[in-house]
């Protein structure tokens, strides 16, 4: 298992290769377009995180004591950022998820998408990731 911190620094060095915002956004859009992130059966109202701008659906399950996250959004840039968050936090131990933060999002220049004014569901999604991690941690113990 690659650690959360290693994945974060991989992402930061990948993003440092982009020359400008256009390249960066093209990459995020590609991520948003290509990866199937959730089984449609999990796109239920129960799993919906409502943002005023875009919607996020998220499902989590525990496998071999690691938390697996599946998520989707109706907006493609939001979905691309979800793909990055899933790459970082999915298939990790709940304790490590709880101890980790999302400062790397600032470092790769996507901070504005986590701003409360964007109301795109991402901030709530991160909160939800932590809540799931906490719940699964308690379950394991």
């Amino acid at each position: 298992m690659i650690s959360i911190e290693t994945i974060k620094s991989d992402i930061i060095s990948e993003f440092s290769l982009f020359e400008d915002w256009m390249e960066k956004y093209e990459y995020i859009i590609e991520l948003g377009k290509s990866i199937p992130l959730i089984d449609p059966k999990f796109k239920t109202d129960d799993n919906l995180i409502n943002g005023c701008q875009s919607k996020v659906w998220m499902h989590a399950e525990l496998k071999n004591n690691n938390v697996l996250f599946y998520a989707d959004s109706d907006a493609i840039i939001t979905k691309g950022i979800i793909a990055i968050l899933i790459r970082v936090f999915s298939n990790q131990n709940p304790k490590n998820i709880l101890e980790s933060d999302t400062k790397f999002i600032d470092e790769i220049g996507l901070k504005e998408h986590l701003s409360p004014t964007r109301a795109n569901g991402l901030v709530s999604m991160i909160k939800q990731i932590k809540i799931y991690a906490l719940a699964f941690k308690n379950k394991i113990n």
Partner: protein
Amino acid sequence: MNYKSFDVNKVREDFPILSRKVNGNKIIYFDNAATSQTPIKVIDVISEYYKKYNANIHRGVHSLSQEATDAFENSRKTIKNHFNSKETCEIIFTSGATHGINIVSSGYSKILNENDELLVSEMEHHSNIVPWQMLCQLTGAKLKVIPMSIKGDLEMDEFEKLLTSKSKLVFLNHVSNAIGTINPIDYIIKKAHSIGAKVLIDGTQASPHIKTDLQKLDIDYYVTSAHKMCGPTGIGILYGKKSLLNKLPPYQGGGEMISDVTFEKTTYADLPHKFEAGTPNISGVIAFGTAINYMNNIGFDNIFNYEKELLNYAQDQIRKIEGVEIYGDSINKTPIVSFNIKGIHPYDIGSILDKMGIAVRTGHHCAQPIMDFYKIPGTVRASFSFYNTIEEIDLMIKGLKKAIMMLQ
């Protein structure tokens, strides 16, 4: 004055913010329906107040208080003259349109009962829906909705069917914030009055573009916010006919709104102070008057005609984009274009335009019933003001095409 003589480049010099850069590009500000930018004169008035005569009003005998009170009350007169209310005391200062609506809706909680009906339009901002829903919960009165057509016009036949002797109050916006439709309020007011119902007009989206004559239109209650009219945030007005406001109970208790207080009994002050409890936003009120004078100096006819030109040009250009759908196609519109591109989420377009320094609004614009009507999660909304230019619209179109290329 012919609007062709209106010099937009000269006007732009009045707005310091228009020369700043966002994400490396000169800002293109097309979110005027959310808030308008502030001319230097208005900014200066706020700073002058704090530099030269900051004092509490209506109570001090000292000179600073007198100067502040004079400036404050002069502003009320300016606003009274602009909206042409019959009396100055009918202009109540509020924190904004939402506050004004809440004063009226809360006052009606003592007036309505379960046999009464209220009429609201389908194209309202949440601020003109939620306070009334709360009122209905409290009183048992029923809320009836005047439907709109796919073009974004209110269905007048339906309105007339809904209007009965049970209808006590009709409330609607003069202009829709989400799609820009200018509603036929003169007709609606006449019809409502013919059966004895009162009308509240939310003028927030109209007042920056259209000069409204309260007496001529015979409006019962009217609200608007200064920050849509080149003024500061946190200040607005509630207008009500004196006879009606006298019947409404005060909304908040406190200083300023009283005539006499003992622990046994308090008598309330006369209008407008009855509804102005506490120390008001003094600099905001003074600056609101300055903003209105500023707009009148440019001239509302000039503003309307120039903005119409911007709207028509923008609509024509946006319509040429493949897969575009414009929501709200009324022939009577303020300069708002609400649209979507097929297969693309408005959030994605807004995010990419922002990287280019272009500010548009995306989302449901606090008008979810309209979004439900069109069965969409939201729109991209470009809203213009008299300091915007055709060149800026061209740049937005270029940016839009680039965004579409990236997202498709």
